[in-house]
């Protein structure tokens, strides 16, 4: 799953004036040549700050994203689905671990990041503020939200920061299995009973607006992020990513005989997808905390952190030093 990268606020480039012009020019030249920036390399403060923000949001999205799907592990129908879903959600938590480590290379600790998440200071992917009412909602996430994530992540894997790119390469490999799993689940719903088809159609109707929001506000209204594109922090515009997703997945959804709840959705002669403009006011409202599940998601995270506090303490200050495993 994926978060971040699409919710950049307007970038203030004033701080760049304080950077050493020679170092800045050399840094930009390296990126221009396609070199990766590594943790101990010189980088402008603004680059460091924006990367932390993006990788941290991505990591948060992985652990928050584990909740709407995780709740279906105990209800998954049959051994095959139960085992696959467990493995899938476990991967997502593993991605969080990997991404927090990547962000830590920039100087912010995992603990600080998780504190900022539960205090509401950091964002995560908006789509996980919506509820999964049925098994079909869970299948929608596994297939199409993960598909959207792959579109974003494949682009970002070509970015400039070494540790993030390497994490993304591994994540994308795992996500491609998630996508196959999700698609497989949906094929079974599509070719199953009338009730199963109806379940997925209803899920599609519920999730289409958040899915369109997933790629972030339209380029017409989104913040100016040219400097981030130049530094290969952001690898494509929101509309480009959305268009790529529609191009790859709308035909697959139609192929299964489902209806996408947007009468204006069509590919025009120039190969671009046209659609009803998503409700960006709702997007803003939800991302600022007023969505159907924001409070619950953060509360679950807060409770998990509080309940685990004594365990983490016991790891930090053991009376005895580390002991060798017994077996």
């Amino acid at each position, binding site marked *: 799953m994926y978060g971040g990268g699409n919710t950049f606020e307007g970038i203030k480039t004033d701080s760049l004036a304080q950077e050493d012009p020679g170092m800045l020019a050399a840094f930009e030249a390296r990126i221009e040549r396609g070199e990766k920036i590594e943790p101990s390399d010189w980088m402008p403060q603004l680059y460091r700050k924006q990367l932390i923000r993006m990788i941290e949001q991505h990591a948060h999205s992985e*652990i928050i994203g*584990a*909740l709407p799907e*995780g709740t*279906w*592990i*105990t*209800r*998954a*129908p*049959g*051994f095959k*689905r*139960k*085992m696959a879903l*467990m*493995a899938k*959600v*476990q991967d997502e*938590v*593993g991605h*969080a*671990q990997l991404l*927090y480590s990547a962000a830590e290379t920039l100087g912010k600790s995992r603990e600080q990041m998780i504190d900022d998440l539960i205090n509401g200071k950091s964002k995560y992917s908006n789509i996980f503020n919506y509820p999964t009412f049925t*098994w079909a909602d869970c299948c929608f996430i596994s297939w199409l939200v993960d598909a959207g994530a792959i579109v974003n992540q494949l682009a970002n894997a070509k970015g400039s920061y070494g540790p993030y790119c390497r994490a993304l390469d591994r994540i994308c490999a795992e996500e491609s299995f998630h996508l196959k799993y999700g698609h497989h*689940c949906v094929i*079974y*719903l599509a070719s*199953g*009973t009338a*009730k*199963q088809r109806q379940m997925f159609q209803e899920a599609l109707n519920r999730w289409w607006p958040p899915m369109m929001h997933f790629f972030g506000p339209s380029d017409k209204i989104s913040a100016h992020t040219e400097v981030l594109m130049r530094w290969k922090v952001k690898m494509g515009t929101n509309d480009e990513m959305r268009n790529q997703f529609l191009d790859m997945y709308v035909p697959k959804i139609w192929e299964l005989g489902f209806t996408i709840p947007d009468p204006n959705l069509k590919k025009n002669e120039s190969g671009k997808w046209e659609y009803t403009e998503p409700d960006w006011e709702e997007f803003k409202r939800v991302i600022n905390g007023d969505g159907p599940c924001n409070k619950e998601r953060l509360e*679950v995270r807060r409770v*998990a952190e509080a*309940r*685990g*506090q*004594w*365990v*983490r*303490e*016991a*790891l930090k*200050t*053991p*009376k*005895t030093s*580390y*002991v060798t*495993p*017994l*077996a």
Partner: protein
Amino acid sequence: MNTALKELLYKMADDQLILGHRNSEWTGMGPLLEEDIAFSSMAQDKIGQGLALYTLLQTLGESDPDTVAFTRNANQFHNCILVELPNQEYDFSLIRHFLFDSAEALRFEYLSHSSYEPLAQLARKIRGELRYHTLHANTWMKQLGSATEESIARLQNALEVALPYALGIFEASPYETELIDKKIFIGEAALKEKWVSKIESVINQTQLHLPDWKTLTPVYGGRIGKHSEHLQPLLDEMSEVFRIDPAAEW
């Protein structure tokens, strides 16, 4: 022989399925990401082991694994009560994992020499997986059982709550003698004896202490379908989607 063998396979399969289900409830809720991932791995192993055992039962004429796992009621399950208890806090989940998997590692070690070859083969595979489960449990027991005042007190308390249920793992089956005579399994009593010394050897390396075994009253009933109030809600949740249409393919 089939009746005795099936009884053995059912109780083991049900144990794995139900504890796997409980372990999976830690997904997204672990005290740290690494433990979240570890409990998820163990959940996958256990559910997989359950599936393998149900598959073996199918070869003996029972229904397919999905039907067996997703359509029976609590009184038709033969798991011990220990595995169906709610996760509670991490202290209880860890203690249960330690007590149960220590028993399972020994159980499948013995079963790898079973005269029933399909079970012996499967046990050799499961034994390898359980090695990691006990490695994990013992490492955490030694760490938390010797760390802070709070961690030691919590583990001690959870240990005392869990032990009578853990003894329920070894509730004798009506077919013990037959299983032992036919060299299918060494029997619950022998297994329990080995388990006690294994548990003692680990606990002795921590600041925890074991109560006198003689003072403990085992909680039995699970093996004959008499369960706590916690099993049926777990099964209802597990089969929620499956029951929408048991004939459908998901």
